[in-house]
């Protein structure tokens, strides 16, 4: 218990009356007032999140792109400067060690953002895998705070915090730019998120996190921005059909199981045009070509009782055909939703299944993912 880490914003969370919880080795705000109110604020206005528990690992050097092409399943050399991509770090057997966002900050400088609970593993694996490449791996998690502003009003709010609001407004989804806060602090602003809404993630030096937090609250207040905790973050990402490591992804899962085979780039090549033998390649190629043993699906309840992670998915006849990985009553849809791994023959949209909710079979239907998609202008 003694080595649970604190973010630079923990005192702000306590002062705001947050319920704190341990997550990925960090003491994090679970909720400030109400999960539902925080969830709805992000869907309808904006939410402010402390994500300083996420790992920030930098790779720098003339061999950084080639090193990441070998270390990760995606193509790092194919990312344009100022853009970001979702990728994964896999073991040699093709199972997922972490899912990551890779930002290309310069030709020879990448930022890898890892899940809090996996940062140590990612750091260790990257250090090992970049050997024989001209690249330096540095963990800057402790000195970097990450603050997210998410929701339909996020652009207006975040634009008010920087000296070049036009640059911020021009950022495309999965793009990032170095910008300066009006307080004179240099930050990296990315148009990324984990909520299914438009939004920004701001990487800020840890010592300036409090100032940014309070500026964002002040700028956001007229727009309906509220502080939002991990409970809302989880229900938001679930509605958006996004996987969470430890639930949909883990060291027994391949990207193909999770329906994320597209992140594996068998076609990536080195400078001479030769295929890259990235870690996990052979196992993943075999997995790609094999019939799937299980499929990740969305389930929507007909009743009001929610499934929970770990519950059995069953058929009419009571045969066990899968396991729920994440579930919650969906605030936006107004009914319980779930992600589950099921056998391929019951994975078709519209299939009537049930979840064993503490001894009673509750009816669920297989539905397309995501459960929620924002209306785009």
């Amino acid at each position, binding site marked *: 218990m003694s080595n649970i880490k604190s973010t630079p914003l923990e005192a702000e969370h306590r002062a705001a009356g947050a319920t704190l919880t341990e997550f990925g080795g960090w003491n994090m705000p679970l909720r400030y007032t109400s*999960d*539902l*109110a925080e969830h709805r604020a992000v869907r309808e206005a904006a939410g402010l999140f402390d994500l300083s528990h996420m790992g920030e690992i930098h790779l720098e050097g003339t061999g950084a792109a080639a090193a990441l092409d070998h270390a990760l399943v995606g193509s790092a050399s194919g990312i344009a400067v100022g853009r970001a991509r979702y990728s994964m770090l896999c073991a040699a057997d093709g199972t997922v060690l972490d899912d990551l966002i890779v930002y290309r900050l310069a030709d020879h400088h990448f930022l890898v953002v890892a899940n809090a609970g996996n940062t140590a593993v990612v750091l260790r694996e990257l250090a090992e895998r970049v050997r024989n490449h001209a690249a330096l791996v540095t963990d800057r998690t402790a000195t970097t705070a990450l603050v997210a502003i998410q929701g339909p009003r996020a652009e207006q709010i975040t634009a008010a915090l920087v000296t070049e609001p036009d640059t911020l407004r021009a950022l495309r989804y999965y793009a990032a730019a170095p910008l300066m806060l009006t307080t004179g602090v240099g930050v990296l602003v990315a148009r990324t998120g984990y909520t299914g809404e438009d939004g920004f993630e701001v990487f800020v030096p840890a010592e300036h996190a409090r100032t940014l937090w309070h500026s964002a609250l002040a700028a956001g207040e007229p727009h309906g921005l509220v502080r939002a905790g991990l409970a809302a973050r989880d229900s938001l990402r679930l509605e958006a059909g996004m996987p969470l490591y430890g639930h949909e992804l883990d060291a027994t899962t391949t990207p193909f199981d999770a329906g994320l085979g597209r992140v594996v780039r068998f076609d990536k090549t080195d400078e001479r045009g030769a295929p890259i033998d990235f870690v996990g390649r052979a196992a993943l190629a075999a997995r790609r070509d094999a019939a799937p043993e299980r499929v990740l699906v969305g389930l929507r309840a007909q009743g009001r009782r929610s499934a929970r992670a770990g519950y059995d998915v069953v058929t009419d006849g009571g045969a066990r055909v899968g396991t729920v990985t994440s579930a919650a*009553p969906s605030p936006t849809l107004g009914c319980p939703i779930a992600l589950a791994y099921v056998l391929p023959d019951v994975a078709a949209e519209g299939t009537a299944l049930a979840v064993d909710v*503490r001894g009673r079979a509750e009816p669920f239907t297989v539905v397309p993912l995501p459960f929620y998609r924002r209306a785009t202008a």
Partner: protein
Amino acid sequence: MATFPAQLKYSREHEWVDGSSPAAIGITALAADALGDVVYLELPEVGAVIEAGAVVGEIESTKSVSELYSPVSGTVVEVNQAAIDDPAVVNSDPYGAGWLLKVDVVSTGELLDADEYARHAE
């Protein structure tokens, strides 16, 4: 230390019961806060005979589910349909509009007064 209404009695499982007849039963503010936003209640039918210490229902929140233990033995004479329809009232007014059951009490389980419950809850 949190404070709890002095006129109520409490179970160690975080239910409260008032002294009226029939007796109203609910969950404490502490339990409601720990659960988070309550979104679904499963309560016994009117006429059900319930026993102190037994599971008589479920309280489900966005993040978790908790069983409702009856603090008393007796017969359910009313369930709070308004709370079933809008369970948020369990969070917003746990000792008032967020009551769950009214029971014709035959006997009670072991109950704590407000100070004892506050110490138990620490």
